[in-house]
Structures are given as structure tokens and as C-alpha cells.
């Protein structure tokens, strides 16, 4: 179904990203709108934010964001308004709540584990007896001679 919408959106016409008629007169509000748009997902696109998307739905969302800003909403209120209507699917940066904590903690936790293992490995390497390399087999010795002669 989503693919159908996407296909229709593409055929609908070459509207592209932010149009001149969408831009707000107040540069401060417009800057906030752009900033917010970059964190909001165009629901019918593949991983595209509404600021970059050419889809008609993205344009509707851009206009909606600007409407709320002009009405005096704070950034947080605009986001909440959109999440209310479209679900957390609209957020490109998932909230760090509930199960999503796993997503946010995965990187730092893995870094910690990796650093600890690396430290343990380095300690072993530092104190390991300096083992003499295993003597070469006859075959390897011949091979080595041949390489060195080159």
C-alpha cells in the first residue's frame, strides 16, 4: 500500500522539496521550521525527511509545521502535535524511551565492552613470555630461501 502511495506521489507531479510559496516571511520562524522539518519523516517516502522530499504529503506536513509555528507553538509542541496524529513513525530520531533505550545505549555499551576486552588483551600481550617463533619446517625454509633470493 505504501508503495502505491509513493508511486502515485511520484507521478502526481514534479513538486520538489520546499517551494517558494511555503517560505514564511519571518526568517526566525522559517529557520525553526526548516530545523524541525529535517527531523520529521515523509511518511510515504523511504527514509526521507519532509524538508527534502518531493512528495505532496511532505508538502502538506511542511505547511502544517509552519501553521503550528505561526500559531505560536513551541518546537516541542509542534513535534507532539505531529506524533499525536501520525505516531512515532514520523520521528527520524527515535525518542530514548522504553525499548528504544536499547537502541541508544547499544553503541556506548558495546564501546565499553570492546574497550575492556581490548585492555584485557593488551595486558596479556604485555606480560606474555616472549615466545621464540616456532622453527620453520623444511618446506618453509626452502620457500623462505627462494623468496630471499629474489
Amino acid at each position, binding site marked *: *500500500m*505504501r*508503495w502505491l502511495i509513493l508511486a502515485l506521489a*511520484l*507521478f502526481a*507531479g*514534479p*513538486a*520538489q*522539496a*520546499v*517551494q*517558494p*510559496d511555503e*517560505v514564511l516571511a519571518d526568517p526566525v520562524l522559517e529557520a525553526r521550521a526548516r530545523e524541525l522539518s*529535517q*527531523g520529521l*519523516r515523509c511518511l510515504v517516502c*523511504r*527514509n*526521507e*525527511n519532509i524538508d*527534502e522530499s518531493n512528495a505532496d504529503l511532505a508538502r502538506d506536513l511542511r505547511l502544517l509545521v509552519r501553521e503550528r509555528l505561526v500559531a505560536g507553538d513551541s518546537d516541542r509542541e509542534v513535534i507532539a502535535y505531529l506524533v499525536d496524529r501520525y*505516531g*512515532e*513513525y*514520523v*520521528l*527520524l*530520531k*527515535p525518542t530514548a524511551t*522504553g*525499548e*528504544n533505550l536499547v*537502541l*541508544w545505549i*547499544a*553503541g556506548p555499551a*558495546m*564501546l565499553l565492552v*570492546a*574497550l575492556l576486552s*581490548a585492555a584485557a*588483551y*593488551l*595486558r596479556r*600481550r*604485555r606480560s*606474555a*613470555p*616472549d*615466545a621464540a*617463533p616456532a622453527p620453520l619446517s623444511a*618446506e618453509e625454509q*626452502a*620457500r623462505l630461501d*627462494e*623468496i630471499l*633470493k*629474489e
Partner: protein
Amino acid sequence: MLSRMFVEFGHFTLSLALMIAAFQAVVPLVGAQKGWRGWMAVAGPAATAQFLCIAISFAALTNAFVTSDFSLRLVVQNSHTLKPLLYKVSGVWGNHEGSMLLWVLILSGFGATAAWFGAALPERLRARVLSVQAMIGVAFLAFILFTSNPFLRLVEPPFDGQDLNPLLQDPGLAFHPPFLYLGYVGLSMAFSFAVAALIEGRVDAAWARWVRPWTLAAWMFLTVGIALGSWWAYYELGWGGFWFWDPVENASFMPWLVATALLHSAIVVEKREALKSWTILLAILAFGFSLIGTFIVRSGIITSVHAFANDPERGIFILAILAVFIGGALTLFAARAGSMEAKGVFGTVSRESALVLNNVLLSVAAFVVFVGTLWPLIAELAFGRKLSVGAPFFNQAFTPFMVMLALILPLGAILPWKRATLGRSARPLRGALALAIAFAALAFAVQTGRSALAPIGLALGVWIIAGAAAELWQRAGRQVPRLTRLPRADWGKAAAHSGLGITFIGIACLTAWDIEDIRVAKIGESFDVGGYEITLDGVERVEGPNFISTTATMRVTKDGREVALLHPEKRVYPVAAMPTTEAAIDNGVWRDLYLVIGDPQADGGWAVRTYVKPFANWIWAGAILMAFGGILSLSDRRYRVAAGARKMPAIAAPAE
């Protein structure tokens, strides 16, 4: 019809390739186990034959596209008689079935190079490597023949085709997939070497030296492939974005990160006989990520779980391949890794330790990308939460790793092996550090009241580049004539590291200092963007070979002097009924001028978008320099020892 017979023959040789691959997978492996030299010796000719069969098959399909043979369903769906020749050829891999054929062509090609240039490898290792390579071949040839056959016929051929997606009709994208596959699939060699070494139960410096050229080659291709894709997105999508953290992009980026880690850890195995089992694991994971990437892209599971559930055949097949190969290799690894004793002893402050840290950062960064890419899937399947993970997450979660990597890079690269003192080793880098701080201060002074992104990125980039230069200078004993006598590998290292620095500078400055202007302009009207005066001279309708274009003529001047005359276009491809934007870009070292023409407006004007993009080309120039560093390193004579040995059969003979 000659073309049709060729197609039938190509279909036949593809089936033949499957049988040869099956033979090549079994016989040399048994031979290596039992010590039967005759059985081991068939691996080479079999690899060559398999490659030739697939090459004929690929040539047949290419011929069908070039001659527009519409009796083939694939040609109907992806080509058109009016399409320029280049895109008829690139149409071969611009679709699922054809690109899989390219995949196995490259796979067997890498196998064949191991047969042709691997004469110096020990007999058993070579037989086992070629056998494992052939196993992968069997899996993917079966995948093509049973789920994605490019040679399916139509009973009633139509008069013309449905055209290739117009977005794909572009020189940048025509060559993007072959490079990417050369990288993805090239990592299969590292995998085959790793599995062969596990079967053998032995990894040593020689093994690392043999596996390195193939890994390096795969990494170079992957670097160029990713850069081409990013460059294409930049100029084609109409607003100059260069990286989107799209699942498909991540699928190519994860193997790159792991392959980069692998290149560095293999150096430790080669020079110091340490990190052996970790290097084997990385070799397995690097190809594992290639397979995961293939799965993500081909199954469509990330774009839509439902689309996957409706047509799961291909996805399940690739998942099975993934499970068998990666699961099998990891099981083998668990059983055998313990026997790979590390030999080298080194202190905490040493090149070895720095490379361990490099590996920690690169692999955890790859892990972050992996979790972020799969999280929407996990969240939906496990918790019933439908959510997105996009660029803002990755920018925040991934960037710190790159910053840390950049900070330690010059220091780690200059540390001596075994044991070092930080203070003394770091002394040659004092100049680089001062330069980096100076540039950061300059950037901070020039930009007023903007984010710290550009100064930090600039400082890191300069630190890496100047650090690489300082290291070369140090290695040459601070004497100019000795610079030219340094081994190529040293130059390769410096070039690749500098390339990374240049890419960092490009990304940071472009992201921070990008100027954008969106407005309605009337014909003849001028406006000012970032110090440039831009005039819309006219808009006209132009007919291309297979598209209709609305072309604008725009003049850019600065201080009264003409800088560029640019022609941004909006195209419509009638066959595919799809519009595209063709931005007009004036490329420069310090900035790109990027113009886009939009829709006509009610009042007679045109929507016009203007961007000034500072340092944009540095991003891809850096990537090309990285790949060039790889070539330099590959051409170092130390890696050609094996090639040299082959020239002396008289001496080599008694050794065998």
C-alpha cells in the same frame, strides 16, 4: 535469430557454471584433506572454467540488452530502443536479476584471479580457498537459477520496452553498482582465506600477507563505489545531499567499516603475529555484512515488512545463504580459534595497541550502524512499535566514533611497534597539532555565531593530513631525497589517511556553511546569494533522445565578472512517466554553485533554488585519494614477492 541463440547458450553456460562450481567446491576440499595432489590441482582449471561460463552468460544478457531483444522479460521491463547505448549496457545491472548475474560474475572472477595469481600459495591453502569460493558460487548461482533467472522468455514479445528508471540513466549511477559489487564480492576472498585457514588450523604472517592484496583491492572498489553513489545523490537528487543513512547506503557502509578494520588488523598479524583470531573473525564478519547488505537490499524487508511477507522467496533464500555461510564459518571459528596462539609481545603504548583501538572504534561504529538500520524491524516485530531511525540518530550516534578515530589516528600511525614512549613518539606531531588548532581558530573567527561543527571538522582534517605529512618526513629521516626512496606502502598509508582528512573537512564545512536560497524569479530578474549575483536569462523547452526537458539559462556573476553560465533542467521521461531534476553545478575547489529550476508560477515567474556549497568536492576527492592510497600500497614490491617467485620456476620447483 543469432541473438536468441546466444541467449539460450548463455542460459546453458549459467547452468553449467553451477555444476562446475559444485565440482570445484567438493573435489579440491577432499583432495586437500587427503593430500591427493591431483584432486587439489583441479581447483585452478575449474575456477577458470566457472568464470568463463558465467562471462559467456553475462555477455549473452548484455547482447540481449544492446540489441533490444524483447523476447526476454528482463529486457522488456528495463530497456527501451530509444535509450542511449551506455544505459542499455548499464540496464543489464540496473535490475535485480541482472545485478545478481554481475554479482556471480565478479565472485567467479575473484576466484579465477586466485587461481591465476596464486601460484605461490601453498597447495592446500589454495585448494581450500578456491573450494570455499566455489561454495559461495554454488549458493548464488542456485539463487539466480531458481529465484531470479534473468533469461526468462515472453511468449509474445512486445514491440518496445518499459524503459529503465530515469533516475538510473546517469553516468555516475551506471558505474556505481559494478564498483560496489567488486567491493562487496571482493570481500568473499578474505572470507574464503579465513575459512581455509580455519580448516587448516593455522594463521601466520604469510597468510596475512596473501590475504591482504585481495582485501585491499575489495576495500578500494568499495570506497570508490560508495563515493560514486554519494556523488550521484549530490548532483541528481536536486538539493545537494550527499549521505542519507538510508538502509541501502548503510548496507554498503557497514562492510566498508569492517573491511577498514580488517585491513588494519591484518597488518598486525603480518608484522607481529598477534590479533590472529580477531582478524579471522573480522574477515568472516566483513563478508557477513556484505551478505546482510545483499539481504537488506534484495528482500526489501527494511522498506516494508509486509512487502517481504508477501513475496518472501528471494529474501528467505538469501537469509538461508547468510545463515549457512556465516553460521558455518562462526561455528568453525568457535572450534578452531583457540588454536591460533598469538606470538608477538608488546607494551600498552605501541603501534599494536593503537591498531587495536582503531579496530575497537571501527567495529563498534559498524555495530551502531547495524543496530540503527535493523532497529525499526526489531521494534516492529518484537515490541509492535512502528518507528523510524533516520539521519538525526546516526549523525548523533555515529559521529563521536569518527571524531575519536581522527584524534588517535596520527598518533597511532607514528608510534613504533612493540614498545614506545608517548612523549618522544608524539614530538614530530607538534607542528601538525599547532596547525590544526590554528585552522580551527581561523574558521571560528571567520564564521560568526555558528555551530562548532566546521572548526572541529577542519581541525581534525588538518590534524590527520599534517600528521601524515609529519610521519612521512620523520620516516625519511628529515631529508628530502630520501622521501622518494620510501616504500610505496608508506606513501599509500599517508595518501589514504590524508584522503580521510580531506573527506572530513569536506563534510564538516559543507554541512556547516551551506547557503541556500529559494525564491520565485522572473525572466531577466537578478538576485543575490552569498555574494553571487544570479540572473534568470530564459527558460525553453528542449527535446532529448528519450526525454523532454525544460531548460533554464542562468548567468552567475561576482563583482561584475561572469563566473558561469548554467543550464539547470527539469526532465520528463514519457515512457516511464517520471520527472527528474538535473541541477546545474559550477564545480570549484572552494565551492560549488548549485542551481535548480522548479515549476512555473502563476505570476509568470519560476521557482528557483540556489545553493552555494563550500568544499563539496573535497568529500569525494578525499575518497578517491583513499582509494589511490590503496593502489600505491598494492603496488609495493613487498606484496609482489609472490608474483616475483613465479618467474623462477626452476628454483620454485624443488620447494613444492
